[in-house]
């Protein structure tokens, strides 16, 4: 289980996250909703150690991880799909996957499983990442993170700028991972997409988790969306 306890984090003297606490259990999808600038992406980066915690702590399966160097965090099994994909654009699809595999010394069998999930990538293995379509790039970003065989997967706006068929594909992959027991933290702007897959929804405002509800509770009180997301 991933757990954040009273976390403060930010960039230099600018504090973004304030006394933030949340947890994500294995086999559940926790969705984070909030306005732009609420601190959702900073929260993801803090978990990955890319933004250092100033106070509070982050725990993974009982092990404190916020004091580890950033490069050790993925080796514990936390996969990260950053906003904007952040592929290694000058590398081929195969090389991008290789970077994912190397993180936890996974082999060809893991790569096969991942390629079976996204067969379109198999035909593009020797193609440079920046020559792929937007949807294919998102598949690659997801596949690269899955090469770690993560126990926790962080997705930062994975459907941003994608066509509906591609969104369905990514959603199906996320749901399949939940079935496998992966704890998923999903930052998403599309509320309807969140409601279809989420087990719990947490609203982030001014760097704090202000409210956690189930999708049915959210359906029952849609004013929450207006209050915290502005839709």
């Amino acid at each position: 289980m991933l757990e954040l306890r009273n976390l403060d984090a930010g960039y230099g003297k600018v504090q973004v996250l304030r006394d933030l606490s949340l947890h994500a259990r294995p086999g559940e999808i926790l969705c984070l909703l909030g306005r732009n600038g609420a601190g959702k992406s900073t929260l993801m980066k803090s978990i990955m150690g890319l933004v250092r915690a100033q106070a509070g702590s982050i725990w993974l399966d009982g092990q404190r991880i916020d004091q580890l160097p950033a490069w050790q965090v993925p080796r514990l099994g936390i996969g990260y799909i950053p906003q904007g994909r952040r592929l290694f654009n000058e590398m081929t699809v195969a090389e991008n996957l290789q970077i994912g595999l190397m993180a936890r010394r996974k082999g060809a069998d893991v790569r096969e499983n991942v390629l079976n999930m996204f067969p379109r990538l198999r035909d593009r293995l020797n193609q440079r990442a920046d020559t792929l379509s937007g949807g294919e790039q998102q598949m690659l970003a997801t596949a690269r993170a899955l090469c770690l065989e993560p126990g926790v997967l962080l997705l930062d706006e994975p459907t941003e700028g994608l066509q509906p068929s591609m969104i369905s594909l990514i959603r199906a992959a996320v749901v399949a991972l939940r079935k496998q027991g992966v704890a998923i933290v999903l930052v998403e702007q599309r509320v309807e997409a969140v409601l279809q897959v989420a087990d719990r929804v947490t609203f982030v405002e001014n760097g704090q988790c202000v409210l956690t509800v189930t999708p049915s509770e959210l359906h029952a009180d849609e004013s929450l969306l207006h209050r915290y997301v502005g839709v």
Partner: protein
Amino acid sequence: MDFGPHLLLAMLEGLVQASVLTLTALGLSLVFGVMRVVNVAHGEFFMLGAVLAWWITFLVGGPPALAFIVALLVAPLLVGTIAAAADWLVLRRIDYDPERTIVATIGLLYIIQQLTLMSYGPDARPVAPPFNTRLALPWFEFGSGGVQIYWPWGLSITSYKLFVIFAALLTGLALWAVMARSRLGLILRATQQDRETAQAFGVPVERVYALVFGLGAALAALGATLVVPIQQAHYLMGGDPLLLSFIVVIIGGLGSLRGTVVAAILIGMSDGIISVFFSPTLAKMLATLLVAMVLVFRPQGLFGSKPA
């Protein structure tokens, strides 16, 4: 000597210079490409390589070939280790901030230079080449009786200079193989392209930086060890390689290893040829003029990518 043989001689001298320059500039380009650090102390790592090569051959003694082989292996290794330690002690602590790394490497430049002056002294000292057979080269002339081969007086190259060209070629190919085909190369390229994402996939970026800074300095030291039997080791010898390496890296395209090799051959060859026919000063003037033109008409260099 006729113009033809004279030109061939100048080209061969230029090729030797280009070979050493390629190694030195590859080091600078690698450090800038992966770390985005402008290493002003790069020329001093070159000088340190030459001085250590002298010291090692002096300490080892015995046949020049044996002493030189030891120097060729140990001097770059020592310089690489010193550079990696400098990265760990200085650059890492200022978080590789672009402006502060320039100031820090200027500091390193003076520290290395003055420590060398204090310990090695102000004298220029030669290293005996491991072998130095003079090889006469033929020239061809088309006359009334067909092609005639003759051996012009003075048209020759030493076996050692051929070795320098061969060693630089071999090192360049090895570096290409590491970057393009190995796991380490994949890690270096990932770090170069996106430091933060590389970390998010388990790449220990700070260790990679120390390795790259060490490797860049070791390449300069290798170039210096190769050149020290031709030139001499001196504590002020780092200036020219630094200037030429910057010229090469700017013309080739910042961080582009392919561009660095092409530009090093271009600058090294032209430097050699112009130096032989005119003067070394004119060669440097023309090279700097070329940099100015590249900066005006193609700021990203020959093989660099345009900033987004």
